[in-house]
């Protein structure tokens, strides 16, 4: 089992004919993902490799039954692309695009409220259920299919580092999700923790956070109340100076809010095993998850 995506997921790609869109679509196809459609306004009737291209998401969904969209549309047009997918009834939207204005994402988030649709990202590596379906830009081979660990993270390459250490310990993954490094995103830690808790094949969770905002603190409280599976937490950015955007738009300490130290304290007080040395995360996972 897995969460949100599996071998039955039917993917469409918005921005499929762009450089990034083409490259990563091919990587997803090579991994075994069912890529059924692409959308680029003005290019309906064309094909990207064997994938048919449509003008609009509605047309693509109608013709192919796509139920998930991966978005590579550039930042000025990305909010529009997300809303188009939601309006077309796409159940899962994975927005890879980095650099969408905060005001645009706040409008999108309010637009999505109450709609039967889940947004992952933006500014994220995507989501992968190893061995079944890869929707995003993460390297497939570092993952180990079969579970039993779920991974949720605000980062990209740091998630790969974590997954790599798990795989090296012989610990497989059910699903790995990058929820994105922006201040306003769709799916949050709590949504993923809740889904992993309910997934029968997931027996433990690794949660990778970073400075900025209060998502980790809220997740820690949720874990204490509702998650019975063991959780290992990691926070990046303990040495980051306040008031500076550390690469990710959302990774910024504002005044006394959003510090790594505060997040680690919150996680510890909620009974989460915190890894304070990334170099030893794999060993800690082996110990806590009993492999």
């Amino acid at each position, binding site marked *: 089992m897995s969460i949100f995506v599996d071998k039955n997921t039917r993917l469409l790609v918005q921005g499929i004919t762009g450089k990034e869109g083409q*490259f*990563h679509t091919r*990587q997803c196809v090579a991994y075994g993902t069912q890529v059924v459609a692409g959308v680029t306004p003005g290019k309906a009737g064309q094909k990207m490799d064997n994938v048919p291209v449509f003008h609009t998401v509605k047309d693509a969904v109608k013709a192919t039954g796509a139920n998930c969209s991966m978005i590579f549309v550039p*930042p*000025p047009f990305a909010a529009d692309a997300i809303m188009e997918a939601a309006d077309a009834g796409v159940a899962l939207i994975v927005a890879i695009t980095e*650099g*969408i*204005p*905060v*005001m*645009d*994402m*706040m*409008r999108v*988030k*309010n*637009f999505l409220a109450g709609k039967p649709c889940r947004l992952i990202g933006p500014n994220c590596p995507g989501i992968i259920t190893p061995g079944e379906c890869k929707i995003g*830009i*993460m*390297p497939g*081979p*570092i993952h180990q299919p079969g579970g039993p660990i779920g991974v949720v*993270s*605000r*980062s*990209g*390459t*740091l*998630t*790969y*580092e974590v997954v*790599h250490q798990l795989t090296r310990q012989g610990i497989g993954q059910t699903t790995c999700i990058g929820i994105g*490094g922006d*201040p*306003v995103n769709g799916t949050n830690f709590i949504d993923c923790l809740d889904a992993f808790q309910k997934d029968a094949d997931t027996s433990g969770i690794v949660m*990778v956070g970073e*400075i900025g*905002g209060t998502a980790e603190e*809220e997740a820690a409280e949720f874990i204490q109340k509702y998650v019975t599976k063991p959780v290992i937490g990691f926070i*990046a*950015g*303990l*040495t*980051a*100076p306040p*008031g*500076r*955007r*550390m*690469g*990710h*738009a*959302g*990774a910024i300490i504002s*005044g*006394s809010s959003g510090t790594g130290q505060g997040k680690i304290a919150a996680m510890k007080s909620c009974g989460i095993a915190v890894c*304070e*040395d*990334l*170099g030893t995360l794999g060993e800690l996972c082996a110990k806590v998850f009993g492999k």
Partner: protein
Amino acid sequence: MKIHEYQAKELFKKYSIPIPEGGVAFNISEAQGVAEKLGGYPVVVKAQIHAGGRGKGGGVKLAGSQGEVKTVAGQILGMNLITHQTSPEGRLVKKVLVEQGLNIQKELYLSIIPDRATATVVIIASEAGGMDIEAVAEKTPEKIIKVYINPLVGIQPYHCREVAYGLNLVPETIKPFTALLSRLYALFVDYDCSLVEINPLVITAEQTVIALDGKVNFDDSALFRHKDILAYRDLDEENPLEIEASKYNLNYIALDGNVGNMVNGAGLAMATMDIIKQAGASPANFLDVGGGANAEMVENGFRIILSDKNVKGILINIFGGILRCDILAEGVVQAAKKTGITVPVVVRMEGTNVEEGRRILRESGLNLTTAVDLKDAALKVAAIVKG
């Protein structure tokens, strides 16, 4: 992106938000000229730098005559203004804002920021104006008013009333205040601000409402649609190495340690800084070369790290995914040969094509130390900088 107070007030003026009469001056005689035009003393002379706490640092002074303007402007222009928000060396003051003095009756706090957790725009206001709002929120949270606005609906009259009555305004100031607030909201939205703050917003003895101070920050991701704001950028306020890095789309932040580091991905870059610290050394920078880094970006990153004279060793940490390790190793070798390595370099690579990448480094003839994993890398570079 940050701008100066006088620039923020230019935007306020554009939105008909009342500000004191005044003007910016780059030297003493200009300051005297502005003061004379204001038609009366005292006037206020305010240092223009991108940092708060200017008053406490001696960067804001009252002048009761033209002679005093000369003295005060002379003291402030050219001073190294040190505040709790500047570096310990302070910031050189190159311009001042000269403004009319006001008969202040009451000082309020007013700001608008995006609330990331609720995806709404939040108005924050308080009767405790002129003070550090974080301290007010901590000690007397009941003095803080917060009103959340759905950006799809925008600000409504009742939002403004909620703030106005919450601030216990007298009847004659309610209308001017609510008008000001809705215009400030428009400014915030129109320009994709990450903060607009007026601290203090003053009520004068004549019952007018005036923005005595002004701070406006912008969402960097939205600057592509605000070309007029880019003209406000003041390179004097930025670190020279960060300006250089921004030319090559490198995410570089200068820090005060001595271990330079280059990483792909922001999260991994932060974690790398942390692990350097845990190994007993201290990072000299944050540098994310991004997932699509090429040889040229690596080379520029190298050059920028080496321009920091504090750097005694460099740690390169790359997790090859889509960006393969062999391509990256080639980039590092080329960069090192072109730039010349003047300090020891430790390289840790993992991921796609890692064996090929390690071979390229080994056979390059360069004096590079390779590390087997992250921990090994941090310990090795820490040992190097400690001598």
